[in-house]
């Protein structure tokens, strides 16, 4: 009895000390009496919106500025002022590096990729499991700056998500007498449909095109299609070892060539402007001539269609499914984002983490993201999006709920833009060539392989 009693007292003391410790840690981390300025630096939505908001020239919609965020934050934490410095997308990495070197940054906007400059966030997430449950996804990277390459480290948290979604023109499908596919369609299905609808529309007599391969006017984003098709075929390009030297890259495997061939075949169903990448139109309008499009910015496309009163003409659908591997059956989507990271030279890391949590989950911040025409990183936010978009939001929710976490970043087995040199630029270049039809799948694979091997020779 005595032993039991002593044990109970000791347990209570231990629990109390742990709680006190936790409490004191929290209190020390977030000292509400300390007055200072939290500095945010980098590119992305906050900078694009500016302090007082912006006007979308296509849809005519006015969107709010980041003063909404500042007001809300300072209402919650009056002792911590916010200072937001935008870095234009052109050469943003060097701008952020310079700012970090000067020691003036706490939160790096879009900093998940700058692995040498940011804090690993896995411990923060582990200490905050409720928050981890609240959000759809994190940004992870494989980097020797933090871990070895076999480990995917969380380096950023998105506050907006841009999943790749397909937009199917019901009218063109009907004119050709073709049924709309269901959500379990494959890339081969997409190709087959695109081939059938490239030609003269039997009803209107106008030229139509089967598909629009995304981002053909922006070489930096042209890799999206490769990443998606590669994940669908489970064409693993990168096999990670502990270091770059231990890792292997294979763009010439049978599966990789199959991916390149798919891009080339899809290219044959694109309009000449898309194939050439000049004057490419993305808007969903009444003059649409392409049966299947896919791109990010789903909210923007919805608004365009609504302004043009053609929202009923377009069906929003997840991209084709993954056919092989552990994620078979889920959409092979790619997802862009605006993310935030904690600068590793910051003196206010806990406050930086607090801001990241605030920006991704606070109701006012989430509403601000939606008002800016973006998808927030929390399911509650998607409910609001559904109120606006109706059942068109189903494609978004299915994509976000099923897409593997690591598909949102640059550290998969299908794509890596951090460790292996000019992957993005070269993949963009060969994708443009494939869509235009000026190279073969085998040549594309060889070009990628050579470029990366030559880069790795410098390591």
């Amino acid at each position, binding site marked *: 009895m005595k032993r039991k009693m002593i044990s109970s007292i000791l347990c209570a003391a231990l629990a109390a000390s742990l709680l006190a410790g936790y409490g004191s840690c929290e209190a020390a981390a977030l000292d509400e009496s300390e007055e200072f300025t939290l500095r945010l630096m980098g590119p992305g939505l906050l900078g694009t919106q500016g302090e007082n908001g912006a006007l979308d020239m296509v849809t005519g919609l006015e969107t709010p500025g980041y003063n909404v965020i500042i007001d809300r934050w300072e209402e919650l934490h009056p002792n911590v002022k916010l200072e937001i410095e935008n870095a234009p997308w052109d050469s943003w990495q*060097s701008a952020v590096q310079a700012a970090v070197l000067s020691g003036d940054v706490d939160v790096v906007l879009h900093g998940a990729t700058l692995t040498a400059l940011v804090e690993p966030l896995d411990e923060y997430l582990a200490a905050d499991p409720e928050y981890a449950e609240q959000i759809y996804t994190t940004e992870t990277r494989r980097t020797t700056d933090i871990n070895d390459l076999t480990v995917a480290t969380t380096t950023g948290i998105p506050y907006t998500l841009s999943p790749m979604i397909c937009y199917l023109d019901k009218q063109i499908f009907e004119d050709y007498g073709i049924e709309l596919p269901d959500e379990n369609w494959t890339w081969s299905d997409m190709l087959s449909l695109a081939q059938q609808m490239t030609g003269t529309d039997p009803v209107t007599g106008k030229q139509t095109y089967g598909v629009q391969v995304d981002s053909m006017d922006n070489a930096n984003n042209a890799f999206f299609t490769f990443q998606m098709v590669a994940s669908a075929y489970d064409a693993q390009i990168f096999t990670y070892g502990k270091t770059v030297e231990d890792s292997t890259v294979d763009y010439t495997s049978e599966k990789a060539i199959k991916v390149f061939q798919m891009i080339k075949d899809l290219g044959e169903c694109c309009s000449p402007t898309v194939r050439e990448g000049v004057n490419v139109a993305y808007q969903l309008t009444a003059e649409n001539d392409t049966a299947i499009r896919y791109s990010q910015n789903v909210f923007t496309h919805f608004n365009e269609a609504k302004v043009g009163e053609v929202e009923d003409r377009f069906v929003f659908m997840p991209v084709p499914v993954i056919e092989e591997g552990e994620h078979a059956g889920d959409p092979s989507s790619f997802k862009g984002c605006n993310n935030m990271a904690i600068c590793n030279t910051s003196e206010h890391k806990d406050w930086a983490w607090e801001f990241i949590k605030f920006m991704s989950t606070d109701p006012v911040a989430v509403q601000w993201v939606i008002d800016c025409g973006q998808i927030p990183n929390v399911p509650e936010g998607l409910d609001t999006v559904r109120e606006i978009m109706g059942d068109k939001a189903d494609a978004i929710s299915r994509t976000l709920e099923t897409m593997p976490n690591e598909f949102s970043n640059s550290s998969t087995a299908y794509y890596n833009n951090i460790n292996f040199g000019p992957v993005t630029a070269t993949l963009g270049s060969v994708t443009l060539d494939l869509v235009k039809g000026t190279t073969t799948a085998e040549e594309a694979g060889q070009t990628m392989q050579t470029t990366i091997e030559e880069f790795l020779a410098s390591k």
Partner: protein
Amino acid sequence: MKKKLSARQIKKQLRWYPFLILSVLALVLFVYIPMGKTIQYSLYDVSIVGFGEKFVGLKNYRTIFGQSQFVRSIFNTFVLAFLGLLTIPLGFFLAVLINGLGKGKLQSFFRIGFYLPNIITGVSVVLMFAVVLQGNGGLLNIFLSKIFGREITIGWISDARYSKIGATILWCWSNMGYSMLINLASLQSIPGELYEAATVDGATPWNRIRYITIPLMRSCFTFLLVTGVISGLSRFTDLYIMGKNSAAGIPSGTLQTILMYIYQFSFDVPQFGLSCAGAIVLFVLVFAFTMVNVKMTGFLNDEEEV
């Protein structure tokens, strides 16, 4: 024997030194120190400046010369620079035509008209030429189709086989006005008596150009050659935008110049050691080429004579 300066004279001269010091300081701070840093970083492995540079000796140079991408960018740079020199004969041809109009409003009109492209922002020119040179419905193709009586759909900037020609058309259009203006100024400085004497001697118009105009404009051509090669070797903006905002030299790397390679390894894939090595190679090439030019054409001698 040097004349000794009096204290008053020295004091008088000293007042100018602050002005000199300021410009020397600016030169050192903004030119020589960055140059020195570039040389230094070319010998280091640098992913992020200020975060653990590692000395690697000449490895960066070995690496870039082992990359087919870099070697190709040297080739592209020189081909594009030499093709860009077409602005000199084109500018000369225009200058002769405009000069033939005699001094007056008509000449001023054409002089300004042909120089206008020079003052348009490079980005606007490229965006405009993207429409002119596109394969499908591009203005140039429509024009050629009318002339040849069959449909021509050459992607002048999107097809790797023609991209250098397309890039040269754009370059010539943008820079021909400047070349014309320099040529015209030089042309108008030739004494009219020489032509009159030649005409009296029975020289044909072609002979007057061949034996009077061209020899007397040698220094003008040399100036345009040297400056044209230097600016041609540092082409970037137009090719970057034509390549859909990529430094990869799209299409197929055919338009990647050394400067674009440097940009790629500075900002797309931060490997400052490689980009600095590329910058030093570009500097050496431009310097050597300029020296050869100056030596062969006697450009500086002419300047001294003047």
